[in-house]
Structure formats: C-alpha cells, structure tokens
C-alpha cells in the first residue's frame, strides 16, 4: 500500500493525534509503536501520556506547560523522520479453550470459510500476534497478525453480553476481551487469562507491542486454570525469557 506522510489532528487543547494512516495494517502499527517508543525515551516536557492504536498515536499534553500546537509540530516532525522499529516486546503464551460453550461462533466461522472447526483453531493458534493496541475497555487487547483467510466482517447484530476472556475475531482483527461486554465479533473461544484484574499485581497483563501466541487447551482444563487465574495467577506464560 502507499503510505502518505503522517498527519497532525487536533483533539482540543489537551491532546492531538498523529495519524499514520486509516487502515489496519501491521506496518502502520509498527510505525505507531516506534513513535511511541521514541516519545517514551524523549520524555518531552508537557507530554502527559500517549495512546497507540492500529494506525495513530494520540498524545495527551498539559496545555499549561506547553503549547499543544508547537508540541504537535515537533512530534509530527519526529513521526516523519526515520523511526527505528521498537524492540521485540514480551511474548506471552495464552491458553484458549475453543468452540462449544466457550466459542459459540467457531462452527459458523468454519462453515463460512469452508473449513473444518479444527482448521479454524489451527489457523487462529498458528501466528505470533502483536498487541497493536489496548482500548475501548480496560485491558481489551486488539491484535494484528490474524490469518487473512479467517477474516470475517462483524455479525449483523451484536450480542448484548459476551463473557470476560472472550477470544474473538472481527474483520481482520483478533481480540482478547478482559471484561464482560456487548460484542458483534465472532466468538472462537475463551481464555482464563485475565488481561485486566484489579487487585492483582500487575493489574494489566498485556502492553502495546507485546506478542501473543494462543495455545489450544482441552475444555477439561478450564476449571483448574480459571480458578488459578481467579486466585491471581497469571496463567499466561512468558516465552521471551
């Protein structure tokens, strides 16, 4: 795809967004995460926090300390420079129970793509995903790296509630949901891993830039894993040493 230069979009007097593009694309996201890493290193005065998404970085600033327009131009210049890709990040193995009551849409997704349910599980559990962003609700991890042969537009009508730990796909995106919420995505499975858990240290498991691998596990292991997670164990395994 052709890349246009990043743009500066005003978000009132306390923030601005550096927009790299308007697509879900691993290269765009890598540029976003690279700028995010540069800003974390630079610790520019007046920058309060940054929020990476698939395709943009929102920079929150203190308008008393800095002029947001000037800061925006400064960071836009950084965004247009050669950005070194961020380091690999952490790698997590996340257990998932697929199908049945854990993933109500697995069979329908398989049928839609002319695959067996086992094929869908294998293709979903195959890639190394990158956590492109966390957003919407606390700990909701949006991943890039979904096998394009699984991509499927959202359900015509959302479900009013889907459980915490839902593993789903929507369009070209894959998601690890942290808390129960409505969703129009296709539910493939469920993980006992809490990506967000008040009272546990750390409260948030995943960070933007982390990598994720899904490990299919037997439904018979759900209760043990879920109880361990409820007691505060991570259950996810760190693979990067």
């Amino acid at each position, binding site marked *: 795809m052709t890349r246009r230069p990043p743009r500066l*979009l*005003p*978000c*009132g*007097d*306390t*923030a*601005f*967004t550096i*927009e790299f593009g*308007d*697509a*879900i694309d691993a290269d765009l996201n890598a540029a976003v995460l690279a700028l995010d890493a540069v800003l974390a290193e630079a610790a520019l005065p007046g920058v*309060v*926090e*940054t*929020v*990476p*998404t*698939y*395709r*943009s*970085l*929102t920079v*929150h600033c203190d*308008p*008393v300390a800095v*002029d*947001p*327009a000037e800061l925006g131009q400064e960071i836009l210049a950084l965004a247009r420079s050669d950005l070194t890709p961020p380091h690999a990040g952490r790698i997590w193995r996340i257990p998932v129970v697929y199908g049945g009551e854990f993933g109500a849409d697995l069979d329908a997704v398989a049928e839609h793509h002319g695959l067996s349910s086992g094929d869908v599980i294998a293709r979903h559990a195959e890639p190394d995903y990158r956590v492109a*962003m*966390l*957003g*919407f*609700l*606390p*700990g*909701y991890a*949006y991943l890039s790296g979904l096998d394009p042969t699984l991509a499927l537009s959202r359900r015509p009508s959302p479900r009013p509630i889907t459980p915490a730990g839902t593993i789903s796909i929507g369009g070209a995106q894959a998601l690890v949901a*942290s*808390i129960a919420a409505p969703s129009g995505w296709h539910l493939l499975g469920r993980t006992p891993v809490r990506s*967000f858990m*008040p009272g546990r240290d750390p*409260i*948030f498991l995943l*960070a*933007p830039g982390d990598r994720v691998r899904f490990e299919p596990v037997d439904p018979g292991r759900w209760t043990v894993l879920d109880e361990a997670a409820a007691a505060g164990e991570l259950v996810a395994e760190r693979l990067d040493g």
Partner: protein
Amino acid sequence: MSVVLVVLSCGAATTLQDGGRRGYLRYGLSASGPMDCIAHAGANILVGNVADASAIEFGLGGGRFRIEGGAVRLALAGAPCPIRLDGEPVAHHRSLVLREGSELSIDRPREGVFATLALAGGIAVEPVLSSASLHLRAALGGLDGRPLHEGDRLPLAPPPLSGEPECCLDPVPIERDRPIRVVLGPQADRFTEAGIDTLLNAAFTVSNRADRMGYQLDGPEIAHGLGGFNIVSDGTVAGAIQVPGSGRPIVLLADRQTTGGYPKIATVISADLRRLAQRRPGETVRFESIPLREAVRQARERAAAIAELPTRARLVADAPDRLLGANLAGNAVDAFDERD
C-alpha cells in the same frame, strides 16, 4: 478510635473521586476524576485540602451522613444542593464542622448535576493505580470498586480541629445561556459542510443517556461525508464529540471508552467540560467553534483560577449576607458576576 463517615443514604451516582488516574489510557483505562473540576477544587480548598484530594461526588442526588469517632470539617461545592445540619439549612460553598451525634443532609440539587463534598484530610481509601477515583465500568478505585450506598463506612483521617474560622467561596458560574466552546477536529473532515453547520448552529438537548462516560445529545442529525461513519479506532479525549451512524452526537467524558471507531467532529475545550457536565437531561446545548490558541488560553486561565482559590476563600463572618442568602434562595449562580 478511627474516624468514620457513615452513609445513612445516598443517590445512585455517588462516587469517590480525586484528581483522576493518569497514565493508563494506553491500557484502555480512562482517567475518571471529577465531572466539575472547579467544584471539586473549591470544596477541597474550603476544608484545607489540596485541590485534587479525594472527595465524594454526587450526580443528581445527595445523601445523609453521620460521623463516628471524631469530628471533621467539610464543605459542599458545585450544583446547589440544599444542605441541612440537624435539620437547619446551611449554605453551600462554605465550610462547617460535622460532629458526632449530628446528621448532615444533602438534597438533590435545584439545578445542575454534580456537587462535591470534601472532608478535611480526604477519604482514607487505598488508592488503586495511584488514584482513589472510581471507574465504574472497570469496577476499580473508589470504595471497593463501586459507587457508595447506604450503610457504607468511609475511613477518614481528619487533622485535629483547632478552632479555625469557617470559610466560603463564590461559586464559579456555569453560564447556561452561553454556548459550549469546541475546537473542530480530529475528524471534522469526515463530515459535510452542512454537518458542521448543524453542529455549530443547531440547538441540542442533553438526552437521558448521560452519565460519567458521556452525554448523548438529541437534536438534528449531523451528516457524515462520503467516507461514512466508520473509522479505524483511534484514541479519544474527554470532550470528544463522536458522531455514530445515527447522526446523534455523544460527548465523551471522564469515564469514557479510550478508543472509538466513530468520527469525532470536534472537541469540547477543557475549560468548558464542567459547563457541559452540569447540564441536565432536557437542557439545551449549543456549540461554538474557537481556535486552538484561544482554547489553550482558556485552559491556562482556568488553571490559574484554581491555583488562586485559596486566596479567594473568605471568612464566613466577612462574607456579604447576600452570599448565604442567595445560596439558600436558590439563585446563587445568578447572584454573582462572572469572574474575570
């Protein structure tokens, strides 16, 4: 013996808030914090706290309280809620002492939405991620991750009372008749010119779908451009006016979702967030576009006004009678000139 504030009753939207929780937007957690930061700061200053100390926020409600184990200086600021101490009316925007055996009663405000009850020394709950603010959707912060309700016992850590005189502050008006100021963007280019005209010229009404996450507005539909109403999600800020497919704008606020997939036509300036938050369902909202540099100037003036609050507090004995009288009569907001 520890000092405890006992909640005898309170409205549903009664929460603990402090200055808010910074640094977790990248994990999907919005900052929370007071819906009216000047009310929050004012109440805290009146009891000798720092401006962003933890305090109780009421949303279109009030409550009844007692204290056990000591006495505490407290103050209520923001939406003018009638207050009574043992049945006797008291003015808001002033400090007073609640002693063991007395009952403080706060009624639903006559106008506006949010009021803050500050207690000297703040609320001694354990901060979560460095903040006592409740984030309702995340069930995090506040008292056990939830709003207050009847029977709750809030731990306090009041400094000893040493006979300081009571103080009062002039309320900072909400200016209901003036438009809410916005800066266009970040996605104003996703709307037709007519859509932007609608935003800036039509009268909207706060709908019943209004809470700490956001206020949905009723009114004419805002027309999207040819690109439609779906964008790839990007970050949101407090004050972002997102327009979903219905064309009905939603202003995102303190407990908002941190990212969103609808275009955001404009952003309410930070200095006017409290002015919007204090409008009730059914009240009219109009928007006016201003340049970013003017929004920055307003933010700096507001910060200076908050920093000046301690010097603007006056002894109650020195306050003109009209202050107390006006508050009790229910026209406090009109009784004072707009501050410079």
